[in-house]
Every structure is written in structure tokens, then in C-alpha cells.
């Protein structure tokens, strides 16, 4: 893919949950993981992660705790809560349905 796409509104929360599903991460780590997972195809404004994280924390889907990085730096690590894990599963299936529905439409067009 030559150009990178802006993240769709509302999907960022899903991506953040997915990024955290493997291991707890700090903010910068999440941005790196997203880039890595999407093979640089998704352009996430790094700053926009934070409102998303706070939103998720408020909903009780993630929990933030201060910890230390391997470079001995203080950082706030976010991990998925049980609710977060459930929500991730739900949203992933929703997303798949949505994508396949859109796909169907697009195939019919062509």
C-alpha cells in the first residue's frame, strides 16, 4: 500500500484494545505496536491514543498503572481488564460482520 490510511473514528478504541490483548503496554508502546501490526499502513496520530486510553479506562476496559520500562524509565502501563477482553471479542465480531457486509456490497458493484 503506497499511502497510509487515517484511522476511522471509533475504530481506534478497538485497535487499542487489540494492541493491549497480548501484553500490557505504555502509550508509546501501543503506538509502536499498532504501526508494527499494520505494517505501517495505519497512521495513528500518537496524541490521539490518550483520549482513547482515558475513555477506555473510564469504561473500565483497561486499567493504567505506573511501572518501569527496560530502560529504567517510569511509564504508565495499560492492561486489559476482564471486561476489556470481553468487549474486544464482541467488537471484533461486530467489526468482521461489518467488513464482510461492506465487502458483499462492493463485490456486487463490480
Amino acid at each position, binding site marked *: 500500500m503506497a499511502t497510509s490510511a487515517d484511522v476511522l473514528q471509533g475504530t481506534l478504541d478497538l485497535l487499542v484494545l487489540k494492541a493491549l490483548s497480548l501484553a500490557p503496554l*505504555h*502509550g*508509546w508502546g501501543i503506538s509502536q505496536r499498532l504501526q508494527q501490526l499494520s505494517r505501517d499502513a495505519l497512521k495513528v496520530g*500518537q*496524541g490521539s491514543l490518550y483520549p482513547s486510553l482515558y475513555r477506555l479506562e473510564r469504561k473500565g476496559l483497561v486499567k493504567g498503572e505506573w511501572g518501569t520500562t527496560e530502560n529504567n*524509565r517510569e511509564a*504508565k502501563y495499560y492492561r486489559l481488564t476482564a471486561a476489556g477482553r470481553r468487549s474486544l471479542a464482541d467488537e471484533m465480531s461486530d467489526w468482521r460482520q461489518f467488513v464482510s457486509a461492506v465487502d458483499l456490497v462492493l463485490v456486487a458493484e463490480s
Partner: protein
Amino acid sequence: MKRARTRLVERFHLWLRALLFRTRVETEMDKEIRIHLEMETDNNIQRGMSPTEAKRAALLAFGGVEQTKEAVRDERQTLWLDQFVSDLKFAVRGFRRQPAFAAAVVTLIALGVGANAAMFSVVHHLLLAPLPYADGDRMVRVTSTAGGGRLLTSMTTASVDRWRARIRTIESITVIDNRRFELGDTARGPTERIEGVEIAPGTMAFVGMRPLVGRDIEAADTLRDAVPVALLSYSLWQRVFGARIDAIGRTIVVNNVPHTVIGVMPREFSVPFSDGAQVFPSFRGGSPDRSVDVIAKLRRGVTVETANREFAAIFTNLDKNRSEDAPRVERAIDQVPADVKRTVYLMFGAVGIVLLIACANVANLLATRAWSRQREFAIRAAMGAGRARLVRQVFVESFTLALIGGATSIAVAAGTLQLLSAQSQINRYTAGSRLEPAVLLWLVGVSVGTGFLFGLAPAIFVSADRATEALKAGNRSVAGSPSARRLRGGLVIGEVALSVVLLVASGLLIRTIVAMQHADVGFQSHGLSGVQISLTDKSLSDSAARHAILEDMLARVRSIPGIRQATLAVKIPPEFVIGTGQLEIEGRAVLASDSLSVLNLTIGRPDLFSVAGVRIIEGRVFDSYDVLTDRSGEAELVVNESFAHRFWPDGGAIGAKLRRGNGSWTNIVGIANDITVPGADRLSNAVQFYQAIGASPFRATVAFRSDLPPAAVLPAVTLAIRAASARIKIGSTVRPDDRIAAWRIEHTFTLRLIGAFAVLALLLAAFGLHATIAYSVAQRTREIGIRIALGAEAEDVMSLVIGQGIKLSVAGIVVGAVAGVLAARTMRALLYHVAPSDPATLIAVSAVLVGVAVVASYSPARRAIAVDPVEALRSE
């Protein structure tokens, strides 16, 4: 279920933490973002960038740091508080920078809201919650009248007992006697007159209160031989006994009878319908015919009408005196005379209008300020403040101003109330008006409401996204945009229109008062005076001697230079004597009409007609009493025009015979013109009968007509009376002119208040006009410069600017005239010989407003012609 709850608890915890430890959370967020940027920078350096480049790239990748923080705060939801605090700080800083602006706004609001709250407290006290008791809305006063309500009579203890046994719609009924008492021992020194209420056992239960200290009045206290006891008001207890508990059992002398103090009432206690009473002696013994005031409590759900119907129904089944009516119940609100209610409503409307004008003015000021701050708004928008955020900022500012103004308005309201209670004519009704909780609540509500109203204008401006345009366009084009001008113009037109409404009302009142002053009242009040005398001294008990003294006195009075005529009457017009007894016309069935059981009489000597200037239209004046037999005059009377017309519409009144009650028959010998005093609706066609005064009355009024002012002849009249006999007691002086003026008091008082509000409104509107024109001149400096450069004369520029002011004011006048005529219809009852759409008033008001527009735009116009075209063109 449980999970949901823990989540809720957690959320609440987060929110609370954010709220309480706002700074900590804020630093945490700062720290988190800083660390993020450091990590990204390190990463960039590892990928081979220079440190500065790495940092720049990190910032770029992150996006706006401030926007992010703002967005995070948004998510945290304590945002409103943060923003509120910062908006508040910002607003206060802004006001500090422009103290004159802030002071102007606060003053406008304080005046508007303060006057409004004062009037509301009158409305509240008088009409909304007149009786501050738990069952206040069910408490009524039972009144008895005669002659179809024209004569107030009193009920007796015996009749109350009879009613108590029969009436079903009333839950409880109790007697009180509200009067003035002499406090103190006359033998010991000066006494004091205070208001008091004699109460019966059960009055406390009726009100639902208990004495603060001591005991209540009991049945035993009312026995004829019981020791007289009294309860004290809280204030009297403090004043006389220094609030000492041992006041109980001590003695106070009331009406020269020592009373034992048995208790003290709480501070907020008062007997319904008897405000201001300070001492509450117990009823004692007394005859069953003793007249009393009666208060009662309606059963729950019973209306005044139902209760009155029951009273009337029972009444018709009872033996009754023909002249008496069935008792009626009245709520406190029914006791407020219609004219007082009218005045209060009018005032309330007037202060509402003043408040609206003040609001419009403040809106105008705020809008101007918003327009001059468009760069600031634009910059804030560019820095990440959303439109909603800017609107909120504007509203925080206007609400802050409104609340400061509201707080200041408390003083204005208190002052206004003080002023109102200094007006003796209405203080009876306004005296109890206080800034009570309900009024303060109203005040806060009105302040917030005004804050919203005048915050709208700048908010509309901000939200219309003009701010961002402003950055692009520079200052001129936006502020001068048609919609901005329309808004400002609309506000000013509204202000002018509202002040027109008040001016029209004032103008109509002025016309009414003038018409009243010139009205033909049916007698010559001007120059007429009276002095009340009484000849009750024992030495004057011989009627022949009394007659001689009176004749001598009249001769002396008549010989005073400046006095043309003098005579005797019981009362002189426009006052009259009330006579009772059913009227009977010979040859007709007994007239059952209630209005004929109470008659208005003027009793005087035959020459009273010429002294008072009452004309005899037909027939002749009655004869005077014969001195020796003391008879003939009794047999003749004069009736007024209305009376004659009522019973003899085709003429023929003269010669008819009448009698009252079981009195002797009298002949109608003449018809006099009606006496009508404008403003005194109840008294129109006041006097129905004229009859002769006895040859040697014990009490009379010396009526005289003089070309000199009353004050100039009174001393001589007093001397003449004394010279006739030192035994004559001289009472008060009666001046018909003053009496008539007193009936106009409602009008003069209303005029004074509405006039004051109208002047205030006019000043505010002038201020608004001036500000708008001045601002528009400032906006159009360039255009004016060009005009001048192109050769426009000073007069052209002047007329351009003043013309704009006149245009705005004419638009306001048109709108206001229509509204004013509509509003004036509601005060029709107050108008006399003036139509609500009186052209003279409308023309005068329009002229005043056009004049004000010219004056208000004069100084901006001067500024406009002083524009230097070169400067003006360069300034853009």
C-alpha cells in the same frame, strides 16, 4: 449485576479522584505525555536523527499536545469544572482590565433586578402568600356588612356562636379584637399607643403556634372575675423586659388595667389579618353583644365561593334585620382593594420592562465587547478551543456578571422597599414585604435568566464561527457585517419600543390626572373649607343658648375679611353622612333593594347649597329648622339628579313623599345636581339626599368659602369661634380640595413610580442608542473618510449619522406605540376621560424619543465630521 456495580464504583472513583486531585491527575497526564515524547525522540535518535530533529519529529508524530490534553480532559469529565474555573478566572481577569465596562454592566443589572425583586416581594407578600402560616391559604376573615356591602358592620360574640353551631364549610372559627391599646400607667408617666389584639383561647391552635415561653390563654382566663392576663410579642418582650425569662408573672398596664404576663410569642408570630400587634390580652367576660373581628379556617378543599353560598343560604333562613347582609368570608388577597392590586400589577409590569431594557443594553455592551475581542476568540479557536467551548466562555462571563449584579441588586431591592414603605398611601400594603427566601430565590432566578438573555447576543456571534473568519478578514468586515448590525439595531429598537410603552403609560396618567383636576365634580371645591366644632360642653346644654352662640359665631365668621359665606353642616361635600333604614316611597311597594337600606346624606342649613356650590336643578331648597319648634325642616328634603331619575325617569319627583325605616314622611322639594369625584368610583353620585340640620346641633362643621388660601383665614376663623364661646371645642379642618386630591392618590402615586421607571427606561434607551451610533461611526470611519474626501459637507455627514439614530428610534417608536396602546388597555380602569390610544400622548412620546435620538447621536455625529480623511484611509 455485581460486575456492573463494581464498574460503576470504579468509574465513580476515577471521576472523584479526577475531581479532588485535579492537579495530581493533571501532572500525571503531563508526565505521561512527556515520557511518550521522550521515548519517541530516543527512538528517532536511534534511527539516526540529530537530537533537535528527533524532538521535532516526535512532536509532529504526536500531533497537538494541547489539543490532546484538552481531549483527554474531555474524556475525564471533570472538564466542566476545570473549564469553568479557568473560564471564571479568565472572565474576572477580563473584567479587571475593563473595570468601566464591568461596572456599567453590574450597575445596569443591579438596577433592573433590584427593582424587580422589590416589586416581587410586594406581589409575594400581598398576593401570593399573604398569610405566612401552615394553613394560610385557608384562612379567611368573616365580615358582615349592610346595604349590599356599602356599610361595614361588625359581628358580635353571640352571632359568632350561632354561626359556629351551623356552618359546615368552616373548620374552625375564632374571635379576635384588633385595636390600639394604651401601654403604661397614666398615673406614673407618659403612655404609649401600641397595636394589640385581644384573643380567645384557641387562637394559638388556629394559627398553629405555641408561646415561646410561658403558657397559652385558657378558658379560665376569660371569666368575668379572672385576673386579666396577656401574652407579649417577641419584640415587646425584648423592649420592655429586656428578653428576661422572669417577665412571666410580672405585670404590664394595658388601658389602665394591670395584666399579668403569662407568655411570650415567637418572633414570627402574628395574628392573621392583624399585622404589627404587640400585645395579646385575653378576652374577658363581656356582653354577648360585644362586637368582634372574626377569623376562620375553611375546610380543606372548600372555596371562598362555597363558604359564601353556605353563609347566604343559612342567612335567609334566619331572622334578620333587613339592612344587614349575610356575612361573607374574604381571603387576605380579597381584602386588598382592586386599585391597590392594579397599581401593584402595573408596577410589576413596569419593572419587568425596565429589566428587559437593562438586559438589552447589557447584551449590546457584551456584543460590542465580543466583536472587539474577535481576534482573541479566533486565536483561542486556533489553539484548540472548540466552538462549544467559546460559547461556554461567553456564558460564564455573562453569568458571572449577572450574579455579581444580582448580589448588588439585593441592596437596590432593600432600598426600593424602604422607599416604597415611606409612601404612606400604600405602606399599609407593602409594610410586610421583606426580602424573604422566596424573594431571594426569585432574585437569583431573575439574575440567571438575565445572564442567559444578554449572553445570547455574544454567544450567537461566537458560535456563528465569525471568529475564524475574523482572523482571515481582519477587523472591519465582520463587525460591520449586516447580521451584526441587524442584531445591534434590533436590540436598540427593542429598547426604544419598551421605553415608549412606559412613556405612553405615564403620558396617559398625566392626561388622566389633568382631566381629573379639571373635571366638574358637581360642587365648588376650590375655596371651600370647613372646621369641625363640638358643643358638647355641659354649659351648652340649653338648646336656645346653643342656637344663639352658633348664630353669633356664624356672624363673626362671615365678617372676617376674605370670607364670603359661612354656614353649618354635619359634613361638607365630598364627604357625607351614612344613614341606614329601608327606604319607602309613598304609593309604592317597599323597595327591597339592598342599596336602598344605606343612604348617603348631606345634612346642612339651606344656604349650604350656595356655600358649597351645589346647584338646584329643579324645585327649591328645603326650609331651615324652626328654632322654636325644631320641626319644619325635618319634613322636607332635596334629592340628587340620579336618585330622581332612578325612580321618576319621566319627572315628577318633586312633591313625592319618602320615609326611612319607620320615620315620618318627608316631601321632596327640590333636585340637586350629582356630585361625582373622579377616581372615587365607589362614591360616584355620592350624596343622594340633602336635608336640614337641626337648629342647635351639638356637633357640626362650620363651612365657609373664601378667596384667600385656607391657611390665611383659618386663624381668624378659630378666633371668631373662640370669641363666640370659649366652650366650643375646635376639631380638625376639612379641605374638600385635599379630599378630592386624596382620591387621586392612586393615580398620582402610580404616575410617580411609572414616571420614574419611564425616565430610567428613557435614559437606558438613550444610552443604548448612543453606544450603537458611536460604534457604527467608529466602524464606518473609512467610509466617512471617503465621503469627506469626495467632498461631503459637514451637514451631510451629520445628517447621515443623526439620520441613522432617528431611523432606529422611529422603528422603535412604531413598535412601542402599538405595544403601548395594547398595554394601556390593561390600565383602562385607571384612565379618566382619556382613550388608551390618545393621539396627543402618542405624538408627545414620539417627539420626545426623536429628540432623544438626536441628542444621543449628536456627539457621535460631531466625531464623524472630525474624521480626517487621510488618517481614515491610512488606518485600514
